[in-house]
């Protein structure tokens, strides 16, 4: 074939085409970052459907299907509750609900962090073939985790029904522990708590998802450290133990083990209302702070690297 000189015959009219690209075409702008999140929200029918599909998919050929999610949570909560109430010498009727709720919330956080780090990596095919806001993949993942959480909350309802008499009046988790006021109208605070949790899950997945897509070491690092976080967080043990071992009324540095762990505050805003514990507003303030700072960081990452994700996957 003979080489042909490059000829540019503009066949289509160029009348309305600005000579210089308009400023709105800039890839790196907060406007585009916000638009990505907004369009993802507009596509909620899509990720809503896909999130359900993911769950149905996982249990497609099993007889009892998604009920397995509930059963496995019930088994784990029962085993952990029995074991640790014996080890720590705490009454089972208040400790089992405590472990159950803590573990349900932890499972949600764990799922969002682990799956959040590779949310774009696993969706490579879709990202490269269909133009869609990248936040859609995050929303699908978080929605799937929310559905898991709702399945697990069935276990909470059962446990609550069994131990209701122990929880509906003031009670102590441990003989010398702080007095909990018992279940009250404050239980509805769990709903804004869960909403905040999900809202934070989205920024965590956006932020870590984008970074992990570029640096593939992040997912294994997160995977290996997340177990440590579980043991450091008051889930199978009660935070009041920390003050007890220091002796005296002094909070002591040991309390910092829990207070410096952000996961503790996220667990607490949902767990306290569900169990009739004292609702401590400093947890809400800290979670609120994380929500604002986290979303800001995620939007900055989205602004700068949103368009790079399809190149990196």
């Amino acid at each position, binding site marked *: *074939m*003979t080489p*042909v000189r*490059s*000829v*540019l*015959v*503009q*066949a*289509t*009219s*160029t009348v*309305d*085409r*600005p000579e*210089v*690209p*308009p400023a*709105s*075409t*800039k*890839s790196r702008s907060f406007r585009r970052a916000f638009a990505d999140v907004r369009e993802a929200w507009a596509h909620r*029918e*899509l990720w809503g*459907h*896909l999130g359900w*599909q993911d769950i149905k*998919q996982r249990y*497609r050929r099993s007889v009892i299907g998604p009920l397995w999610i509930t059963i496995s949570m019930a088994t784990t909560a029962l085993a952990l509750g029995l074991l640790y109430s014996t080890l720590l010498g705490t009454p089972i009727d208040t400790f089992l609900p405590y472990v159950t709720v803590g573990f349900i919330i932890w499972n949600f956080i764990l799922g969002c962090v682990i799956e959040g780090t590779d949310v774009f990596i696993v969706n490579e*095919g*879709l*990202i*490269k*073939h*269909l*133009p*869609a806001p990248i936040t859609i993949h995050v929303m699908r993942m978080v929605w799937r985790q929310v559905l898991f959480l709702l399945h697990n909350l069935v276990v909470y309802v059962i446990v609550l029904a069994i131990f209701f008499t122990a929880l509906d009046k003031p009670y102590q988790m441990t003989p010398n522990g702080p007095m909990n006021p018992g279940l009250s109208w404050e239980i509805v605070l769990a709903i804004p708590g869960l909403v905040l949790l999900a809202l934070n899950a989205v920024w965590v997945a956006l932020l870590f998802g984008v970074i992990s897509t*570029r*640096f*593939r*070491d992040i997912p294994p690092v997160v995977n290996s450290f997340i177990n440590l976080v579980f043991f450091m967080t008051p889930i199978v043990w009660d935070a009041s133990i920390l003050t007890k071992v220091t002796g005296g009324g002094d909070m002591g540095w040991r309390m910092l083990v829990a207070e410096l762990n952000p996961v503790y505050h996220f667990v607490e805003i949902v767990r306290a209302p569900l169990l009739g514990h004292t609702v401590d507003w400093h947890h809400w303030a800290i979670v609120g702070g994380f929500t604002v700072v986290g979303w800001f960081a995620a939007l900055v990452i989205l602004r700068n690297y949103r*368009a790079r994700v*399809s*190149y*990196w996957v």
Partner: protein
Amino acid sequence: MVSIDVWNASVDFPIFDAKSRSLKKLALGKVGGKIGSEGRVPIIEALHDISLSLKEGSRVGLVGHNGAGKSTLLRLLAGIYEPTRGHSRIIGKVAPVFDLGVGMDPEISGYENIMIRGLYLGMTRKQMEARVDDISAFTELGDYLQMPLRTYSTGMRVRLALGVVTSINPEILLLDEGIGAVDAAFMAKARDRLKDLVARSGLLVFANHSDEFLAEFCDTAIWMDEGHVKMHGDLREVLTAYKGYDPFERMHMPHEAPVLSGNGGE
């Protein structure tokens, strides 16, 4: 008003191997004296300095050798890749058909797949429900639509994907090559639907090696070569320059062509 405008756009792919994609390498790299690892990552320039302006009513064929950047250009026009340098502006609802398999889940039924693909292409659930019967009639899959997709043959999957794509109303339709693998009788039917689809869509870019197809659907063409637009103009002129002869002289009647993907191009 549907349009695609591209100003001096380049698409460069960074190629990270397992090592250079790690934090360790980045940290050690700074010790070495050269700050910023991006410069050391090998880059493939897939598209170079592309300027295009496509308006409503454009019917553009895309030709070029393998690796010339046709698929990358289609992804740029779809908005999947935003240019690493330069600018692009896409106005309109894009329906890309690059790989018929993507977005298809082998474990779920044909019906479910129709629904999901439709949602991905920007339809609502209601709109798709209204179209399911039409798609099922067109694909002739009948009761098979209840079966999981993994039981389908390749040809049946293509039928399903074509059924979904041709039932929507895209403003910008981007078709990559590789719509083959269906029998001749079905192809004749699909052709009519594709024609309808093209007529409905505001803007078409179609990468294909088959002269018959290009002649039927397009009036202008872009010749891609090594990431550049080598020529952009009237379909016949571009094809003549690209192939070295005038393909329209020996053109068959379009409907005699057995399959969509010809083996032209060389």
